[in-house]
Structures are given as structure tokens and as C-alpha cells.
């Protein structure tokens, strides 16, 4: 069809430009065409090994490097972009349409970048485009959350650039291949990727900003940023032991927050970190099976997480509220959305026959093979935890639980279509995993559907669900409350501002008292000088000609002296 070297971000950027000047059905057609044609082009015309290098100011930028790893992320990003474009068709908001297209295009640009400078360029484009999906909510909370998001993301970009330059000094290469932790540049780059991948203590931009974004924006955001980070970790740091433990912590700590969080989109944000943990863990193990598991999990995760965010976005769009405490009984007015949400919940819980099961099993099996017993138990605990917040809490408190009395309409048709496509794909991957496995970058012979896996997983999930039923009936379940739970963001939203304010007050007092003392002293000195014979040469106050002449003579003398020495 076309030249195979066409970088995949080009159609998206073109569509974004055209979306600026078009409206109505024409813009809709353009927006659907970009991921559809781009995706078909990538699938049919771009073989493994395709490269495109562009020279810019004596520097070679590798804009396109297609291998099995980048192609896998390329495919899923096109599928997700296609679904999300349909999901946002009802909007009459140029800002969100354009920002969404640039954002998706930048993610593709980052995934196909062959060198660290190209990666840095798209890394920054990802940030500047995505923040508008938060600001498009157009309220004070969103604009502040967007600023905090920006600070985190821009720091990540700065670290990436600094790391890349240091890495270049040590290795003499800017190619984006295995980086490792041999030199300080590698550490900086890992930190940059870690911010984007929501490592513990660097994660708050995610749980802070995603729930403040627009109803459709959160679904779009959930797909790209963090999965670009997973891709870059899989390429730059496979087999880095540290990542196993970071990943294990990531799977475990967010689930506690998810249990007590009221905002259902924030619950999903915590759950997003939990799922990233499984991928980071797989990358840390670094065997072919584990790496396949990590990227396969990213693939299926994108679909079911977007599906869950889409269903919550539909509620927010129709009801204007997404707090678990205020919802309930919505299956009566939004039955289709409820059904799609349940499919997403079953997938994220890794129920057999759904997509999460076929990808998570790879990581879990790899952990057992490599003998990481404690980490395996942590991930097993997290798997039961996923069932609580994402598998049960999100659909249960949104659509069932106690009838809140809210009666509304079913989601708009374009939203239903988008959720429907995502739900079908979740089930398709779940029952026919061989198609996904065939796309995986490394050669592995694996099949998840054997008695051991299916039985163990079903027992784990059903008895965890039994615990939920038991606690719900007995009244042990934590009530849904309007509240804020302190997380690491407390450091920079409470502690540091309070400390800074206190330091500012102290500094202000000190400067005021010391300034007063200073003026007292200088005034006294001045008066003493004025009383002597030199008093008439002072410059302040009146301007007698005599003192001017004297000082000019002094300056000229000094100038001559300097000139002579020179």
C-alpha cells in the first residue's frame, strides 16, 4: 500500500492538525480513519526490521525501529486508539479531540523510537498533550492536579535527557537498546522510566490526576503513558533484579488504598498501579517467559483497564458523580454499561476465559520457575486483592449494591460501541490466547488452560468472593465514606508547603528585625560622618558640583590605574 517506513505517529499528528480546522462528521471520519488506516498499514505493510533514520543538525534520529517488541505495542496502541476515538465521538470539544490524537501519536512515536533523543522528544510530547485531557475538565481541582502532574512528568523528561547524555559519555552510543545499571546514566534513566511507570512514592501523579480528568479523558490516559513506560523498561532494563521487588511492592500497596477509596475512578487508578506491578515484576525476572508475560499483560491490561475506565466514564457522564457512596442500582438504567463493566472486572480479576488470566499466568509461572517464592506469594495475595477493588467493588457499588434511586439513561451509542468492542476483545483473547501468544516477542511454548491453573485460579477467586459475600452480609465490610486518604502526596501537598510556609514566616521576621537594626546602625554612622570635615563630599541628599568633580576624578584615576596594570 504505502512505504513501510512511514512512522506510525504521522497519521495521528496529521489527523490532529486536520481536526483543528474541521468539525462535525468530517472530523469524526478523520479521527476514526487515523488509527484504523494506521493500524492496517502497520499490520500489513510493516515487517520486522523496518527502520527509518532522519538526519537533523548532523544528528541521526531513528524515528522508526520495528521489531517484534515495538510492533506488539504498536498494534495494541492502534486498537486502543481506535476504541477510544469512538468513545469520544460524542464530544464537541476540539481541545480533547486534538490532545487525544497528539497523545496517542506521541505514544506510538515513543514506542518506535530507536534512540534516546527521539524517545525524549516523544516523552515530552506525551506530557504536553496528555495534560490537556486533565485541564479539559475546566475546574480548579483539575487545573491544580494538572500542574502537579506536569511537574512530575517534566521531571521525568529532564532525568531522561540527563541520563541519556551521561549514558552517552560512558558508552558512546545513544541507541535505545539494553541500558542496564552499569553507569550513573542508567540509574537516572531508570528513575525517569520509574516516574512514568508509577513506582512507589513516585506514583501520586497518577492517582491524583487521572480521577480529576474529563469523563472520557481518564480512559484515554489509562492506556498510553504507563504502558509506554512498561515498554521502555522492557527494552532498557530486562532482568534487572531490583524491578522484581519494586514490582511486588507495586502489586501490594495500592490494593489497600483501593479498598478504602470512595472515588471509583481513583480506585481504578490504584488498581492500575497494582497491574503495572505484575508487568514490572515480569520485566525484572527477565526470562523469555516472564518478559512475554509482562508485555502480554500490558496488551490485555490496556483493553480491560480502558473498558473499566470507559464504563466509569459513562456513569460520570450520565450521573455527574462517581463516588461509590452515592451510586448503586444503576444496572436498572444502564444495563449494557453494567454488562461491559462486569466483563472488564472479570478480565482484570484474571477469571479463566477472560484476557487477564491468559497473560497473568505467564508472569506467575515464571516466578515459580525462578524460585521467587515470597514474591510469588505477594503477587498471589495481590491477585486476590484485585478481585476486591476492581473485580467486585467497581461494578458492585456502581451498578448494584443499595439502590441509590438514581435513574438515568443508558450511555450514548458511541460509548456503548466502544465498550462493546473492548469487551469482545477481552473475551476473545481469553478464549483464543494463541493469537496473542503468536505476537509475543520471544519464543515460548506455553498454554494457560490446564487443570492446575484453572482450578487454582477459580478456587482463589471464588473463595475471595465468598469472603466478600460473608463480610457484606455480616456487615464487616468497610463502609463507603466521603473522605481523603493520605498517601505519599501528603509530603508535597501538606508537609512541604507547611514547612515552607513556616520557614517563610521565620525568614520574613528575621529579615524585618535585621533590616531595622541595619538601618539604625547606618543612620548613626552617616550622622557621625556628616559631622566630620568629609561631610560635604557625600553624594546623597543634595548634589553639590564639587563632590561630583571629586568622584569623577577618583573614577578616572582608578580607570587609568587598571589600564596601566593591564
Amino acid at each position, binding site marked *: 500500500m504505502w512505504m513501510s517506513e512511514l512512522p506510525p505517529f504521522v497519521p495521528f499528528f496529521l489527523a490532529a492538525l486536520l481536526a483543528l480546522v474541521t468539525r462535525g462528521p468530517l472530523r469524526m471520519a478523520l479521527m476514526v480513519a487515523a488509527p484504523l488506516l494506521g493500524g492496517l498499514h502497520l499490520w500489513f505493510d510493516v515487517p520486522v526490521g523496518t527502520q527509518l533514520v532522519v538526519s537533523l543538525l548532523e544528528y541521526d534520529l531513528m524515528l522508526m525501529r520495528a521489531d517484534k517488541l515495538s510492533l506488539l505495542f504498536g498494534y495494541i496502541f492502534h486498537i486502543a486508539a481506535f476504541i477510544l476515538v469512538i468513545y469520544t465521538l460524542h464530544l464537541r470539544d476540539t481541545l480533547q479531540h486534538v490532545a487525544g490524537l497528539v497523545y496517542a501519536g506521541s505514544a506510538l512515536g515513543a514506542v518506535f523510537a530507536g534512540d534516546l533523543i527521539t524517545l525524549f522528544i516523544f516523552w515530552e510530547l506525551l506530557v504536553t498533550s496528555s495534560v490537556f485531557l486533565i485541564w479539559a475538565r475546566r475546574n480548579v*481541582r483539575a487545573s*491544580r492536579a494538572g500542574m502537579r502532574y506536569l511537574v512530575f512528568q517534566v521531571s521525568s523528561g529532564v532525568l531522561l535527557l540527563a541520563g541519556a547524555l551521561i549514558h552517552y559519555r560512558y558508552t558512546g552510543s545513544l541507541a535505545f537498546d539494553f541500558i542496564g545499571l552499569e553507569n550513573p546514566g542508567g540509574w537516572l534513566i531508570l528513575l525517569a522510566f520509574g516516574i512514568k511507570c508509577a513506582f512507589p512514592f513516585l506514583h501520586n501523579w497518577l492517582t491524583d490526576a487521572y480521577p480529576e480528568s474529563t469523563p472520557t479523558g481518564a480512559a484515554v490516559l489509562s492506556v498510553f503513558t504507563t504502558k509506554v513506560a512498561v515498554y521502555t523498561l522492557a527494552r532498557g532494563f530486562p532482568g534487572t533484579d531490583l524491578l522484581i521487588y519494586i514490582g511486588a511492592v507495586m502489586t501490594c500497596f495500592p*490494593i*489497600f*488504598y483501593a*479498598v*478504602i477509596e470512595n472515588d471509583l475512578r481513583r480506585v481504578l487508578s490504584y488498581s492500575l498501579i497494582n497491574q503495572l506491578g505484575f508487568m514490572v515484576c515480569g520485566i525484572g525476572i527477565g526470562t523469555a517467559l516472564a518478559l512475554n508475560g509482562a508485555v502480554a499483560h500490558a496488551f490485555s491490561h490496556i483493553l480491560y483497564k480502558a473498558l473499566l475506565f470507559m464504563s466509569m466514564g459513562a456513569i460520570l457522564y450520565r450521573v455527574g458523580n462517581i463516588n461509590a457512596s452515592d451510586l448503586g442500582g444503576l*444496572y*436498572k438504567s444502564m444495563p449494557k454499561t453494567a454488562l461491559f463493566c462486569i466483563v472488564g472486572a472479570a478480565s482484570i480479576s484474571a477469571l479463566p476465559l477472560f484476557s487477564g488470566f491468559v497473560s497473568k499466568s505467564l508472569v506467575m509461572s515464571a516466578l*515459580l520457575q525462578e524460585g521467587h*517464592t515470597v514474591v510469588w506469594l505477594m503477587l*498471589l*495475595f495481590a491477585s*486476590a*486483592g484485585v*478481585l*476486591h477493588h476492581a473485580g467486585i467493588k467497581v461494578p458492585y457499588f456502581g451498578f*448494584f449494591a443499595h*439502590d441509590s434511586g438514581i435513574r438515568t439513561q443508558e450511555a450514548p451509542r458511541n460509548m456503548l460501541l466502544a465498550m462493546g468492542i473492548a469487551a469482545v476483545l477481552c473475551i476473545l483473547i481469553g478464549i483464543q490466547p494463541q493469537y496473542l501468544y503468536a505476537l509475543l516477542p520471544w519464543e515460548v511454548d506455553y498454554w494457560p488452560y*490446564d*487443570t*492446575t491453573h484453572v*482450578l*487454582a*485460579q*477459580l*478456587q*482463589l*477467586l*471464588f*473463595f*475471595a*468472593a*465468598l*469472603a*466478600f*459475600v460473608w*463480610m457484606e452480609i455480616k456487615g*464487616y*465490610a*468497610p463502609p463507603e*465514606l*466521603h*473522605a*481523603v*486518604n*493520605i*498517601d505519599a502526596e501528603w509530603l508535597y*501537598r*501538606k508537609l512541604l*508547603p*507547611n514547612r515552607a510556609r513556616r520557614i517563610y514566616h521565620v525568614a520574613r521576621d528575621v529579615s524585618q528585625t535585621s533590616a531595622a537594626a541595619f538601618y539604625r546602625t547606618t543612620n548613626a554612622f552617616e550622622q557621625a560622618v556628616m559631622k566630620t570635615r568629609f561631610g560635604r563630599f557625600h553624594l546623597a541628599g543634595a548634589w553639590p558640583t564639587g563632590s561630583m568633580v571629586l568622584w569623577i576624578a577618583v573614577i578616572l584615576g582608578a580607570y587609568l590605574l587598571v589600564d596601566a596594570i593591564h
Partner: protein
Amino acid sequence: MNWQSVRPGEIDVEKQEEKQYLLDNPRNVTLLLRVFYAVCGLLFVLDFIFHRHATYDWEQLPGFYAIFGFVAFVLLVVVAKLMRKLLMRREDYYDVDE
């Protein structure tokens, strides 16, 4: 006439329009739960019939995954509830100073 007598009309309208939904009927809920309990029981029994390949001996214990799932879930909720005592603040906690 009491001014409130205008308002109960809304409730009457609601009662007329509101149809009986699937889970409004307690019998359906009970049935659903019974099926769920039966599936749980069945899954537990299956552990004694099928052989699971296990990496560790303790993984081989009958009902290992079932008990793990149940305990993990309860532990998670209990700890999270305790965390609330330490971490929970008013909804406008961050909005006050900003």
C-alpha cells in the same frame, strides 16, 4: 391543605412507572447466592478429585488456594479498615491550604 401533600404525587408516579427489576426480588438474590455457594463447594471438592501440579509441598495441600483466597481477602479488608484510622481525613483536607 398541607403543602407537602403536593409532593407525595412524585412518589406515586415513581411507583407506577418503576418496574420490578431482576435483583429487586429477594428470591432471585437468594437463588444467586445459593448457586454461588454451590460453585464454591464444588470447587473445594474438585481439589480432592484432580491432581494439581505443585512446585512446593504446601501448595499441594487440599484447599490451599481456596483458603489462601479467603484469608487474603479478609486480611486485606481488615488491614485497610485499620489504615483508615491512620490515614483518613476530611474530603477537603487538601483544598484548605491550596
